[in-house]
C-alpha cells in the first residue's frame, strides 16, 4: 500500500511520522455479515484513492489533501475505509464516529463536496475514485476531519429543546398523553440526529455566522408543535431575531442532504409563518390580552 501527499509540501514527512507503508495487495478488510441476512450480490472490489483533508494545528497552518490507496469490497463503507487508513497507514488520522448505523450522527463528512454520513455511504458508489473526504463545510476545522461543535451546541441550547410547562399549564394527572394525531404534528422533526449535514449544506450558515441554523430551528419547531409543550412564547425571541430564522433564504439544500428525511427547510418556513402570525396578533391583541 502506498501513501502519497497531494498539494502540500510538508506531507512527505508523514513517512517519518510513523506511517507504515503497506503493499497494495495486502490485507483486505474482513467482510461483515449483511444486516438483512440476504446472500451477497455480485461481489465488487478493488482499490480506491481517498483524498483525505489533513489539518494538524500543531504542524500546519492550513489544511491539505493527502492520498491513501485503500482496498474496498461491496460492503465497505466510507467510515470502514477511513478506519482502515487509521489502522494500517496513518494512526494520527482523526475523525469522529460511534454507532456505524446512522443513529449517532457523528461521522458526517464532505464526500466529493457533498455532506454525507460516512457510515451509510459506500465506497462502491465512488469507484473507481478518487474520493475526496473533507470535514463538514461551514465549520471551523479542529483537526483533520474533526470540526468545532461548540457553535452548533450553543444554537441547540438557545432554542430550549425540551418540553416546557408553566403554572398556567401544569402537567396533568396521570401525566401527559398524546393522540396519534398530536404525535404526527411534530414526529417528523423529532427524527433529527444532530449530524450537522444540514449546516454543511446551507450556504447561509457559512455567510451569516450568527444564524441558528437548520437543525436548531427544526428542534425549536419540533417542541413548539408538541401538545405537551408551552414554551413557544419563550422561544419566539430566539427565532424572531436577526440571527434566528430570518437568515434562511430557502435554498432547501438542508432538506436534500438530511439522512433522516427531517426536512428542516419546511420547519424553518413554518417557523417564519408562525412568527409572522405572532407579530400580527400582537397588534390585534397585545400580549393575548393577558397583560404583563
Amino acid at each position: 500500500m502506498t501513501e502519497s501527499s497531494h498539494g502540500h509540501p510538508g506531507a512527505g514527512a508523514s513517512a517519518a511520522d510513523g506511517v507504515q507503508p503497506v503493499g497494495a495487495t495486502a490485507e483486505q478488510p474482513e467482510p461483515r455479515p449483511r444486516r438483512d441476512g440476504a446472500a451477497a450480490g455480485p461481489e465488487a472490489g478493488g482499490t480506491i484513492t481517498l483524498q483525505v483533508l489533513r489539518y494538524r494545528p500543531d504542524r500546519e497552518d492550513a489544511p491539505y489533501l493527502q492520498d491513501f490507496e485503500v482496498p474496498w469490497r461491496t460492503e465497505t463503507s466510507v467510515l470502514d475505509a477511513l478506519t482502515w487508513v487509521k489502522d494500517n497507514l496513518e494512526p494520527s488520522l482523526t475523525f469522529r464516529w460511534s454507532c456505524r448505523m446512522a443513529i449517532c450522527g457523528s461521522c458526517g463528512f464532505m464526500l466529493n463536496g457533498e455532506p454525507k454520513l460516512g457510515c451509510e455511504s459506500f465506497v462502491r458508489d465512488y469507484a473507481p475514485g478518487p474520493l475526496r473526504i473533507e470535514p463538514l463545510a461551514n465549520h471551523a476545522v479542529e483537526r483533520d476531519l474533526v470540526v468545532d461543535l461548540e457553535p452548533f451546541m450553543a444554537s441547540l441550547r438557545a432554542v430550549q429543546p425540551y418540553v416546557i410547562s408553566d403554572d398556567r399549564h401544569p402537567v396533568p394527572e396521570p401525566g401527559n398523553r398524546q393522540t396519534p394525531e398530536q404525535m404526527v404534528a411534530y414526529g417528523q422533526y423529532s427524527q433529527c440526529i444532530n449530524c450537522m449535514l444540514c449546516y454543511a449544506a446551507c450556504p447561509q450558515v457559512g455567510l451569516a455566522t450568527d444564524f441558528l441554523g437548520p437543525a436548531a430551528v427544526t428542534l425549536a419547531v419540533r417542541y413548539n408543535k408538541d401538545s405537551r409543550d408551552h414554551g413557544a412564547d419563550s422561544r419566539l425571541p430566539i427565532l424572531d431575531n436577526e440571527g434566528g430564522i430570518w437568515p434562511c433564504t430557502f435554498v432547501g439544500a438542508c432538506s436534500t442532504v438530511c439522512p433522516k428525511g427531517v426536512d428542516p427547510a419546511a420547519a424553518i418556513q413554518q417557523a417564519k409563518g408562525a412568527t409572522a402570525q405572532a407579530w400580527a396578533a400582537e397588534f390585534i391583541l397585545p400580549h393575548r390580552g393577558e397583560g404583563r
Partner: protein
Amino acid sequence: MSTSTGARQEPTGAGRTGARSPGRMPAAETHRRPYRPTTKRTWFLANREYRAYALREVSSVVVGFFVFNLVVGLVCLHRGLESWQWWVSLQTNPLNLTLTVLAVVMSLVHATTWFQATPKIIRIQRGTRYVADFWVVAQHYLLLAVFAAVVYFWLGGL
C-alpha cells in the same frame, strides 16, 4: 457524540471556564488552533441545487426591471402625449423586447419554482396524515387560473 481518538482538546476560552463536575481537573492551556474556511463568492455555482436556487432568486430581478419599465410608462402617461409616445416607441426597441421576453420566461420560472416550494410551507394535517404535496401545488395553479380569468374578463376580454 463520541470520538475515535482523544485528539480533541477541550476549549478553555471565555464561557468554558466553569467545571462541569466537581472532580474535573483544571483545564490545561489550550492547543486549539481551528482553521476557519471562508465561503467563496461564487458559492451559488457550486452545485446544481445552488444554481437552481440562484436562478429562482435572480428571476425576481428581471421581473423587477420589467415592473420598472411599466412604472416609467405610467410616469410618461402622466407627463403628457409626447412623453407617452416616446415610451411607446421605446417598447419596440430590440433591447426592451428582449427584456420583455426574458421577463415572461423568468416570471414562469419564479412562479413555478415557488409553487413547487409551497408544500414545505403549507402543511395540512388530516388525522395522522398530511394532504399530499400535489394538491397543495395544484391549488396554487387553480388560484392563478381563477385570478387570471377574473383579470381577463375585468379588462373586457381584451
